[in-house]
């Protein structure tokens, strides 16, 4: 035993050459190197490639699994008991409130971190071959994380939970063809009730975590198979055949540990200061005014104020589909490793971001005060006045953007695609911000945080 202890050395430290294969150090190391590469390209270690975002996501997922497991010992998934079990968790369990806070905050931060992670993968062209499949895997992970957030949101069974879930599931009904059936299936009936809570609890605590963990393993395996991360270069450099390598112990592992500890520290600090919200117990007879979806669905909710639901949903689905098939569109494969694809790409992306930044609030205000006040096209069904017409308008705006970019800026195809992506993303984030910060009673415009 003493012998063993003496032979143990800190796993990240350098190690003797001839060690006993059964020594703890050796065992730990082989374990680590089952999931981490032995060598990594030196340039992929730069913080300005990854910003540590993928690593942060891993830490946040682990925090979710840990705190979620604890919460499961206190939570009762029945409409009559759920809310009270949370009150008990917060008042009677030592660190109950703190555990819930961590679960709440790291879930929300995870969505934000994943958005940024996806954005950095996009802007560095890391979605191009040979990483196309991993882009899809990542997007599925993102969808699963959103589903976890949505299913978790209902569990507290307070007013916030009940009504946010009502409107989120209400959107399902507008999927052409299968909508009503799908909605009934997810809800387990025609209204949110005990069956919905049962379904959501099973999804949230078994199906989704299992799927996320397995898919994460696959995500990392695919990174290894692509020969590691994309190697950063400037636009006029050709991709290096054999980039300079360094051992990942300690270069990569130390960085990962630093990111992990920082994330854990930030989440704990936030969880100590801000309590996760818990409203009044759910009351199916009374929708709070205003009722808002959680912030990551607020963009869709804001679209629903302006668009006929079927069209709002079609636009969102079309955007989602576009993001999924992005790597498979022709002519998108020469810029891997170059931020914004090129110097010109950086300019057009900024232009698109600025254009969306101005156009979105303008369109919202216009619709609210000019179109809305004049009772826009009162004799037409809303599927035309609030559906087809604004949808066609949006297509024209995008086509105009592409025309301006290719004609005036002489943009290439990937640069134009990037600009459209940035335009839609900025617009969508702004819609979400408008819904969260500027929608007051009756969903009128105003300052919501008073």
């Amino acid at each position, binding site marked *: 035993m003493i012998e063993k202890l003496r032979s143990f050395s800190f796993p990240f430290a350098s190690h003797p050459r001839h060690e006993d294969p059964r020594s703890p150090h050796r065992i730990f190391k082989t374990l680590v190197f089952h999931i981490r590469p032995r060598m990594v390209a030196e340039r992929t270690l730069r913080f300005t490639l990854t910003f540590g975002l993928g690593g942060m996501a891993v830490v946040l997922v682990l925090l979710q699994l840990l705190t979620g497991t604890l919460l499961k010992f206190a939570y009762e998934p029945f409409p009559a008991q759920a809310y009270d079990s949370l009150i008990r968790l917060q008042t009677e369990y030592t660190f109950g409130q703190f555990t819930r806070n961590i679960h709440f905050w790291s879930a929300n931060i995870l969505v934000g971190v994943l958005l940024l992670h996806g954005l950095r993968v996009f802007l560095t062209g890391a979605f191009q071959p040979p990483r196309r499949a991993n882009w899809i895997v990542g997007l599925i992970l993102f969808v699963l994380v959103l589903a976890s957030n949505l299913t978790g949101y209902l569990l507290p069974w307070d007013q916030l939970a009940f*009504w946010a879930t*009502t*409107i989120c*599931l*209400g*959107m399902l*009904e507008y999927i052409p063809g299968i909508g009503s059936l799908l909605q*009934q*299936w997810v809800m*387990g*009936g025609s209204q949110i009730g005990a069956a919905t809570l049962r379904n959501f609890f099973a999804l949230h605590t078994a199906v989704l975590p299992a799927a996320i963990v397995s898919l994460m393993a696959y995500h990392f395996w695919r990174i290894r198979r692509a020969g590691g991360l994309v190697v950063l270069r400037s636009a006029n450099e050709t991709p290096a055949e054999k980039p300079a390598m360094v051992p990942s112990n300690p270069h990569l592992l130390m960085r990962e540990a630093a990111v992990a500890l920082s994330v854990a520290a930030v989440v704990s600090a936030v969880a100590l200061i801000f309590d996760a919200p818990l409203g009044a117990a759910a009351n*199916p*007879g*009374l*929708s*709070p*005014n*205003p*009722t808002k979806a959680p912030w990551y669905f607020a963009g869709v*909710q804001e679209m*629903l*104020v*302006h*668009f*006929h*639901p079927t069209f709002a949903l079609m636009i969102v689905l079309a955007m989602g589909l576009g993001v999924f098939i992005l790597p498979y569109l022709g002519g998108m494969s020469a810029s891997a490793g170059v931020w914004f694809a090129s110097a010109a790409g950086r300019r057009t992306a900024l232009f698109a971001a600025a254009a969306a930044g101005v156009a979105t609030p303008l369109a919202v205000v216009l619709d609210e005060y000019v179109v809305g006040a004049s009772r826009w096209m009162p004799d037409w069904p*809303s*599927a035309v*006045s*609030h559906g087809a017409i604004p949808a066609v308008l949006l297509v024209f705006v995008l086509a105009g953007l592409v025309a301006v970019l290719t004609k005036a800026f002489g943009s290439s195809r990937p640069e134009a695609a990037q600009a459209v992506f940035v335009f839609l993303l900025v617009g969508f984030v702004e819609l979400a911000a408008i819904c969260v910060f500027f929608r007051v*009673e*009756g*969903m*009128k415009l105003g300052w919501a945080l008073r």
Partner: protein
Amino acid sequence: MKAKPSKPAAAPVEVPPLKEGTVSRRGFFNFLWGLLGLAALVELVWIAVSFLRPSKQPSGDPKAATVALAGPVESFAAGTVTAFQRGQFYLVRLDDGGFLALSCKCTHLGCTVPWVEKEKKFLCPCHASAFDITGNLITAPAPRALDMFRIIIENNILKVETSRTIKRSGFDPKQVTYLQKG
């Protein structure tokens, strides 16, 4: 754990070449295994799908209509809206004395729509849809009028059949239930 005897790397077993179109014994068994595996997978999926399929009949007799008792006719004055929380509907008495039973679920995304007496409108708190006293749509984004339920008047007592939702695009005077004169 015993170390596995390492396989001899060289000297593979000599396999006589097969004629085109014939299947080796190993190939045949591999095929069988694959088939069995596939069958097992199909069974598993089938079990899972049938387990999770929504039961078509919620417990109880599906054909038994749920009828909510609203009260005697006289208790509703003309031009008023009465909320029935349990049944999730509004009993509306129009100015001409006719009755309507409206669902309180917004046709947009399902929020509960309160009746705002001051404005004489149903105003949805979620995305600002508005409906008039007959449930007709005044302001989008909701796509159609509020759903309604059938009203039965027996011995001056109002009953509402809440088990069957009637969808409609707009208000039609034929939807109103009147007291049988005489």
